[in-house]
């Protein structure tokens, strides 16, 4: 299944994902594995809980003085010969990057995995401008060949089989290739190595940026982040404004929990700290370094209801533990960012109306908040989004009528009791052995589950008798 068609209702998109047998197996295996690895990593790291609190506080402290830290970051990037650009919208970010590419005469851009560039739909824009974008993270490379979008924040191609990947590579290389992960990886290494050496432009995101030093930080496992920041003549880093951290000391706190939350590694293989363009005496490194600071809905939330979502490190832990994500995978959400945090980020980028269905794609079980390294209270914000959808009258009228009448009834105990008695009469033809197997209007419940019948005597109706009972 490729990127979902947003004209189809979310419930149907989810249904299709659940019919995809391979996706189902892949999701179960991947999320179960990630959950286990994360748990083991934190079990073996007793200081982890305290560091999560610290990390959360650092994010909050940074947001409270975001202006100051960004000014500091900008000043330091410029001091080391970098240029900083400001993009309020996705379109502006694309335009800035295309202009950099044009000036550099770029024909090909190698990219290191970056959700920010996914978010602004950069690849399509590059292609239109005649700059061939090449995703170099293996998972991203695979889905680029398949013309899809990532289905997981850190494992973009978990929905693909090795057979499907072998077919994709075969088509690209015009020969048959074995469906073996090791062989496929080596093939990609060879293909992409050429591109690294040819490309004029390297494009990355940023996991962090250190205000005190003007350093952009990239975390990868494959080494493509190092390639992209060392080999092309121009490096562009695109980063959401919330990624800034005050100092190297703060950075270390995040590094200590990021990989553990994402993959259960103590540290990802490569953490690359880039401080501007090539320095004198260095054999390699870009001649130009550009940092694009991206707003795209973030700044509105500094004082908005989704403020806490700005703490997000993009580790993917909330996806793995989410019972909904685990059934439907990333594509069914239909936006760049899937999973529980993805719903919040989608609302941040596109407004609450864009998530009127997705805001309900959660049982509010709280597993996401529990797994989040910076303890983002995702359920609370999902409820808040539901409230906005309700308040702005975006929810379907029938739903509003049902809930508003229910609320009205709950404030009138006598009528409420009466409603119960009416239900008891109406349900009579459907009750077998104290339960209901099928009930008109309640098919969405009874298709897979029995519904308990309204009791022949409710507790309220039994209380008087119970009150007189003497203790046994």
């Amino acid at each position, binding site marked *: 299944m490729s990127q979902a068609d947003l004209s189809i209702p979310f419930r149907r998109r989810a249904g299709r994902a659940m019919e995809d047998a391979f996706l189902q197996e892949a999701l179960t295996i991947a999320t179960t594995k990630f959950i286990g690895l994360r748990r083991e990593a934190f079990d073996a790291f007793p200081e982890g809980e305290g560091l999560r609190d610290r990390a959360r506080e650092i994010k*909050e402290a940074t947001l409270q003085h975001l*202006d100051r830290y960004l000014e500091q970051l900008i000043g330091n990037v410029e001091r080391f010969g970098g240029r900083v650009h400001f993009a309020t919208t996705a379109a502006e970010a694309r335009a800035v990057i295309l202009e950099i590419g044009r000036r550099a005469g770029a024909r090909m851009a190698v990219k290191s995995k970056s959700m920010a560039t996914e978010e602004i739909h950069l690849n399509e824009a590059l292609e239109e401008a005649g700059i061939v974008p090449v995703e170099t993270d293996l998972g991203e490379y695979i889905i680029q060949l398949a013309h899809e979008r990532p289905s997981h924040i850190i*494992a973009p191609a978990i929905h693909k089989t090795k057979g499907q990947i072998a077919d994709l590579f075969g088509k690209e290389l015009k020969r048959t290739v074995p469906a073996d992960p*090791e062989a496929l990886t080596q093939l990609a290494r060879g293909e992409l190595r050429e591109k690294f050496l040819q490309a004029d432009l390297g494009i990355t995101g940023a996991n962090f940026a250190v205000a005190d030093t003007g350093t952009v930080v990239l975390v990868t496992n494959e080494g493509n982040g190092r390639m992209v920041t060392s080999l092309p003549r121009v490096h562009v880093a695109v980063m959401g404004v919330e990624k800034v951290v005050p100092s190297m000391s703060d950075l270390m706190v995040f590094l200590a929990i990021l990989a553990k939350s994402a993959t259960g590694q103590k540290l990802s293989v490569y953490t690359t700290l880039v401080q501007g363009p090539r*320095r004198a005496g260095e054999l*390699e490194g870009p001649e130009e370094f550009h940092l694009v600071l991206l707003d795209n809905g973030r700044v509105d939330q500094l004082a908005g209801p989704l403020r806490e979502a700005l703490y997000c490190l993009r580790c993917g832990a909330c996806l793995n533990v989410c019972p909904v994500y685990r059934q439907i995978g990333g594509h069914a959400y239909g936006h760049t960012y899937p999973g529980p945090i993805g719903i919040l980020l989608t609302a941040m980028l596109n407004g609450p109306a864009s998530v009127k269905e997705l805001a309900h794609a959660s049982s509010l079980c709280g597993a996401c908040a529990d797994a989040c390294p910076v303890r983002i209270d995702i359920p609370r914000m999902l409820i808040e989004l539901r409230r906005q959808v309700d308040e702005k009258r975006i929810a379907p009228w029938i739903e509003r009528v049902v809930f508003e009448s229910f609320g009205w009834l709950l404030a009138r105990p006598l009528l409420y009791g009466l409603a119960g008695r009416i239900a008891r009469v109406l349900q009579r033809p459907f009750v077998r052995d104290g339960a209901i197997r099928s009930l008109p209007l309640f098919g969405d419940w009874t298709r897979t589950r029995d519904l308990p019948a309204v009791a022949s005597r409710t507790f309220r109706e039994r209380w008087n008798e119970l009150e007189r009972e003497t203790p046994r």
Partner: protein
Amino acid sequence: MTTRAEFMARIRAELGKTRGLPPATPARRPARPRVEAEAIRAELAERWPEALERFRHELEKVGGVFYRVATLAEVVPVVAGIARERAARRLVSWHAAELGGDLGPALTAQGLEPVAMPPGEVASAAERQRLRELVAAAELGLTGVDLAIAETGTLVLSSGAGRPRSTSLLPPYHIALFDRTALVESLAQAGVFLELWHADGAPGPRGAVISFITGPSRTADIELTLTRGVHGPKEVHAIFVEAPIRG
């Protein structure tokens, strides 16, 4: 296009709307990084064997290979052994001044083809291109190490003149030399050194990049099967030299 002034003004305007937020502070930073870094070194002067053991353990857990030799001269047979087992001969290395010694002649004597990187700016673009191709074609990359973090089995390398980034990146086998002075116990201690290197606005230790390397390049992007050497080296060998490499 949004200007810096407009961009920052919007942020300030939004921040102005937030009131009564609970106070929050960022991480504690070393007030005097040099003093704290020296204190860490002093502590490790006694505790280093435990830290080294932890480093070995963690490095091996992430798929790295650990060696321990007495002197820099003894590095040569280890490197030659690694090369021989992999039928590899072409080796690129940091410049001798950055590595802590010139191992070239000894490696050549062992049948390798070592090329050391130039110590400073290479003005000619053609020469830069030639060197880059040389590194890209090499099988072995020999480097030094600025920090070895025991907690995670991580090697920290800063780029700079005579220490190109690609030597630890393009060849499939990365061999790194370090001694006691590079050893730290934790990420937090490494943070003190990062603060020290950048103290008072200093432009980092040398070049523009600091790389943390924790084992060989890896991916699990195809059916979660762990595969090594996707873009970076598929093997990382760390050789601990007992005698201080640099005086």
